[in-house]
């Protein structure tokens, strides 16, 4: 029997008032990527910031070329270059306070270095060592992350924990355009929005996931449009405009710190080099496209703006270049030393205490190595 029949004068009611959980309008990104350089706003930008960004970008570019060179000398096992993406890398590091946390992917060693980590330590994993090199707690930088998008829930959990503890810490997590397709991206953004966790998600849309272009990765108007589906603001920014990226990220960090919750930022940029030194980019893209992007280079954009405003003279240029060269020379020199590697370390940190089984295996390896060194034969 239906309710209607049960109760005489019953008339069905309209649906219990439906309320959108949030107003979608302010969450949607602007129609065009936000830019400062090359627009009128460039005239207002803080000279100090411009100069700082410039020095860091020049150093960042040199870092990239040096690291790539180290792969050719066999001093790095692999290097995923961020050449052309330095504006994002540097801005991501600069917008954070000391107490904040950075969650980098494998491509983001430059951001790690820009945050203050010793480049040799930042490159430890890519050198082919078994550990992350730097102490994550020293500069509050999570270990480089290779399994795509898996670092994003970590950033959310850390930011959430900090908030629960009453610390006004923000986490900034970096991911690529390809990484946005992974389930972990979805789950992380959803948790962040539900928990209003102080996280900023920076997607560097560099056009490719290895060989796969964005058109095969998504049909969305933009990756920033994903934000509305989680109830967080999405921002779109010219990723080669260091000032614009810095501003958008700084806004998002401020918003997060003030308890406003997470933001998704999509920075439109381009991977100028191959995916890594092991990749052959000619198999999947033409030189024209690369050339177009080279002419929208983040350093050139900034240099041009500085020059136009008379904020950059030859001496400053030279100083930036010299600082970069010094860093590169030091990096080269130190990377040319073999990392000290003790095979016994393989067993030291699997658990707080090695299990009895690991102790046996360690003893076995020690005996083998001693036999080897003693020149003993089977």
């Amino acid at each position: 029997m239906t309710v209607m029949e049960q109760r005489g004068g019953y008339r069905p009611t309209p649906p219990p008032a439906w309320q959108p959980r949030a107003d979608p309008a302010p969450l949607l990104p602007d129609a065009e990527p936000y830019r400062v350089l090359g627009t009128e706003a460039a005239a207002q930008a803080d000279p100090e910031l411009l100069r700082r960004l410039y020095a860091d970008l020049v150093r960042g570019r040199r870092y990239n070329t040096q690291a790539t060179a180290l792969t050719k000398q066999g001093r790095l096992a692999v290097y995923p270059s961020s050449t052309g993406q330095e504006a994002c890398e540097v801005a991501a590091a600069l917008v954070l306070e000391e107490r904040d946390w950075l969650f980098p992917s494998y491509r983001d060693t430059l951001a790690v270095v820009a945050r203050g980590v010793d480049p040799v330590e930042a490159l430890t994993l890519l050198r082919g060592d078994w550990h992350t090199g730097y102490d994550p707690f020293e500069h509050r930088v999570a270990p480089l992350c290779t399994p795509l998008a898996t670092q994003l829930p970590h950033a959310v959990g850390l930011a959430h924990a900090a908030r629960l503890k009453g610390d006004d810490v923000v986490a900034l997590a970096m991911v690529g355009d390809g990484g946005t397709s992974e389930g972990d991206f979805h789950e992380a953004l959803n948790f962040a929005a539900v928990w209003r966790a102080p996280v900023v998600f920076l997607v560097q849309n560099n056009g490719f996931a290895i060989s796969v272009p964005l058109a095969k990765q998504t049909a969305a108007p933009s990756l920033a449009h994903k934000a509305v589906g989680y109830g967080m603001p999405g921002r779109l920014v010219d990723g080669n405009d260091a000032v614009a990226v810095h501003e958008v990220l700084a806004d998002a960090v401020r918003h997060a710190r003030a308890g406003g919750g997470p933001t998704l930022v999509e920075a439109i940029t381009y991977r100028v080099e191959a995916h890594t030194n092991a990749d052959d980019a000619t198999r999947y893209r033409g030189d024209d496209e690369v050339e177009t992007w080279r002419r929208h280079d983040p350093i050139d954009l900034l240099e041009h703006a500085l020059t136009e405003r008379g904020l950059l003279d030859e001496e400053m240029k030279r100083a930036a270049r010299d600082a970069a060269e010094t860093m590169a020379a030091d990096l080269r020199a130190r990377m040319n030393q073999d990392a000290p590697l003790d095979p016994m370390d393989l067993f030291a940190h699997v658990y707080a205490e090695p299990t009895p089984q690991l102790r046996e295996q360690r003893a076995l390896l020690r005996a083998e190595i001693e036999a080897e060194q003693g020149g003993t034969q089977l």
Partner: protein
Amino acid sequence: MTTVAVKPATMAQALTRALRDAMAADPSVHVLGEDVGTLGGVFRVTDGLAKEFGEDRCTDTPLAEAGILGTAVGMAMYGLRPVVEMQFDAFAYPAFEQLISHVARMRNRTRGRMPLPLTIRVPFGGGIGGVEHHSDSSEAYYMATPGLHVVTPATVADAYGLLRAAIASDDPVVVLEPKRLYWSKDSWNPEEPAAVEPIGRAVVRRSGRSATLITYGPSVPVCLEAAEAARAEGWDLEVVDLRSLVPFDDETVTASVRRTGRAVVVHESGSFGGPGGEIAARVTERCFHHLEAPVLRVAGFDIPYPPPMLERHHLPGVDRILDAVARLQWEAES
């Protein structure tokens, strides 16, 4: 110290108590998972915790297991000690990448600088008449993943002790909670729970001379029952409850088998590629010249977990255990 009457408690109650005591003792202990807050979990193990400690300490998460484990990793990075509940064993699978590639490795890949004191509670195994995907035994996956501790209680007291030890551990620990023992009762005094023993020690639940049954979790009571039944056949069986699958207590197990000269490994998990292979192989390596017969295995079949109406055929039962014992080449002895 007042003496409280020792009353029967269920394993589920002991687990709840362990969580409560751990949360009371250490404000960094946080519980999170699906339905763990308001509802108290589908098995009611987290019952009352959200009320007592607030929703920030016992949190209903969105429905996404990789997200749950992944955010717990981040929480642990910031100094919390998260205790994650996976609603059923098969629903932990979406979190495997986080488990294998991060949880199990973070300490190692940071040279010990970033340990992850994380507890992952997994209701596991069958015997509760569950529909498909609700009765998996997934310990083989966890055992094959270096960096994880894996424990499973068989008694009410161990449920308390192992869960406390897991939460206290600075390493990630997978706690496999046998579903069908959740409502098993034992006299146990929640006001004076046994001292928390470190993870990694097996225990001889029953001493015997004829052969050793090596088992854990839900199969422990079955083996004890089998040992009783075996007396009629003239066999005096020893029962070793492993409690901890990782690390594995070779010492206790080896000592037992060297004494008895015969062994059967018993578990619900499938046989092929399951825990029994590892256990039989390592026992044989260590006890070869003491063995009168090969170490045999009584395990679930190598099939997807069967439906309620057929699960009794799948689960290792007393008869199948005794059949295996009978095949331990007793003639050879005489």
